[in-house]
Every structure is written in C-alpha cells, then in structure tokens.
C-alpha cells in the first residue's frame, strides 16, 4: 500500500491544479515517487442517429461514441504538459512525472481502471470538482464516482479560496 506511484487525473481546472501541487508535495516528500498525470477526454454518445460506419465513430458496449478530434487530443496533451511543468517545479528532481491522454465514455471509469491497471497506483489525488457541471457543487460527479469505485486511497483537494 506504500504510495510510490500517485495517479493525478487533471483537466486543468482550479481544483485539479491544487491536486497537482498537493501530489507533487507528497511525491517530493516520499523521494523516489512517480506522479502519473492523466487527462480523460469524455466521449460523446451519439446513439444510432449518425452513420456509424463513419471514421470517427466507435462502438463500445453496443453504443456509438464519437471519437475525439485531433484538436481535442492536442488540447488535452497541452493541459498535461502544463500540469507536468507545475508538478516538476514543486516536487524537485527525484520525482518522475509521466503524462497520458485517455479517451473514454466515462472519465471516472477510465480513472479507476487506470488506477487498477498492471501499473497499480498507491494513491489517487484529484480535485473536488472539475471543469464541467455546476460550479457550486462541493463534490463533482467524477470525484464522487472515483471515491466510490477506487480500491486505493483517494485524496480530494480543494482549490484555495
């Protein structure tokens, strides 16, 4: 259970940035830790109203989803690069930082899956809410779902008021 690998889902939102900094501080404290930044692009379900033979439509569990565009995946990568810079500046040289863009119908599902992959992480650090939804919610839907679904400890970080 030693958290030598910390998974940080980020979307570049304020709380996500606070989570990046907290994860970096933890990793810096632990020394030879790894911070894995992931950005999940939610896929839009398009039902069967579109031509699913089209190139950018993929079928997952019987439903049609629109795959992300090149621009979207590049934007996601830029969010991760900025996040990696922030983490490196806080954590110092001993900490390894990796980035990964994931495309999935359910961001929370993808985060939990990533946490339980063969490169299992010891801790997930995430913001209390992301870019989507109501700004007034204290705990967003993705954070809530990850808290419920993840087997490993989950740290929830808020943006400083």
């Amino acid at each position: 259970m030693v958290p030598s690998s910390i998974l940080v889902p980020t979307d570049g939102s304020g709380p996500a940035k606070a989570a990046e900094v907290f994860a970096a501080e933890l990793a810096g404290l632990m020394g030879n830790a790894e911070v894995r930044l992931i950005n999940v692009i939610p896929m839009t379900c398009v039902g069967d109203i579109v031509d699913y033979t089209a190139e950018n439509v993929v079928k997952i569990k019987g439903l049609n989803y629109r795959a992300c565009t090149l621009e979207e995946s590049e934007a996601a990568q830029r969010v991760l690069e900025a996040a990696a810079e922030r983490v490196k500046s806080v954590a110092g040289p001993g900490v390894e930082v990796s980035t990964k863009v994931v495309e999935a119908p359910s961001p929370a599902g993808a985060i939990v899956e990533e946490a339980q992959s063969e490169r299992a992480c010891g801790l997930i650090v995430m913001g209390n809410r992301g870019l989507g939804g109501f700004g007034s919610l204290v705990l967003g839907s993705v954070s809530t779902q990850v808290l419920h679904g993840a087997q490993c400890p989950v740290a929830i970080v808020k943006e400083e008021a």
Partner: protein
Amino acid sequence: MIPTTILVPVDGSASSQAAELFAAELVNHGGRFEIEVATVIPPRTLPYRRAMVLARTSSEEDAHRAEELLRQAAGRIQAQLTNDDVTVVEQLVEGESPAEAIVQESLEDGTCKLIIMGSRGRGGFGSLALGSVSQQVLFEASCPVIIVKG
C-alpha cells in the same frame, strides 16, 4: 520548524484502521509530522435547554471507552513508525456532530495540513462505499482529505 499535523479521525472500524496504517506509511517516507488521532463523542454536558431536546450525552464510561480506543489507535500507528521525527498525539473531541467536530479540529491552530480517514465507520449500512461522516468531512474541510477503504 513546526511539524505539519495530519489529523486521523478514528472509530476502531476496519477502514479507520486502514487509514491509520496509511498515515504511518506516508510519514515513514520522511519529514517532521505530528499525527493527531482523534475520536468524537457526544458532549458530556450540554447546556440545560439543549439537553432538553437533545438527550444524547456521553457518560464518563463512554469517555473512558473513547480514550481506550484512542490509545489503541495511537499504539497501532506507533508500532508502524520508523521515522523518529513523528510524534503521535491523542485527542478526545466532544461534539454533537462528528463531522463538524472533525472539521473544527482540523482548523484548530491552523496547522492541520491533511485529514486521513476511513471511507466508512462503524455506524450505518456496511455496504455503503462512503459513509455520512466521511462525506460531510469531504464537503466541509478546507484541507486535502484522503479517504482510505478498509
């Protein structure tokens, strides 16, 4: 340097013990820390008018039980510690709402940097992934909160 305080609310449940273990493993990586194990009991005395409507108070026996619970939790953490710069303190907190009392305790002196707690305590439905106290603490706390499953 003032050690950073990590607040670990405990109730003896499986997930609360997992949180104790996680806290110990975390601080063993190095650094100066104070781990504050805390447990909340209903107030021993209530103002007369409050006591009329809310009869739930703790007896001395309840307080002793809570102190014993704290001692055991602190002992479990001490047994795992390999970092000499970590001190463990026990804190019995009286409050009508456990979550509110925990959040208040985290704001005390302004030194608490982190709360580590179990996903669910002893009360309520065993199948819930996130208990009511953990959920309320997540909502109200201003510092980061790590939720550990048992």
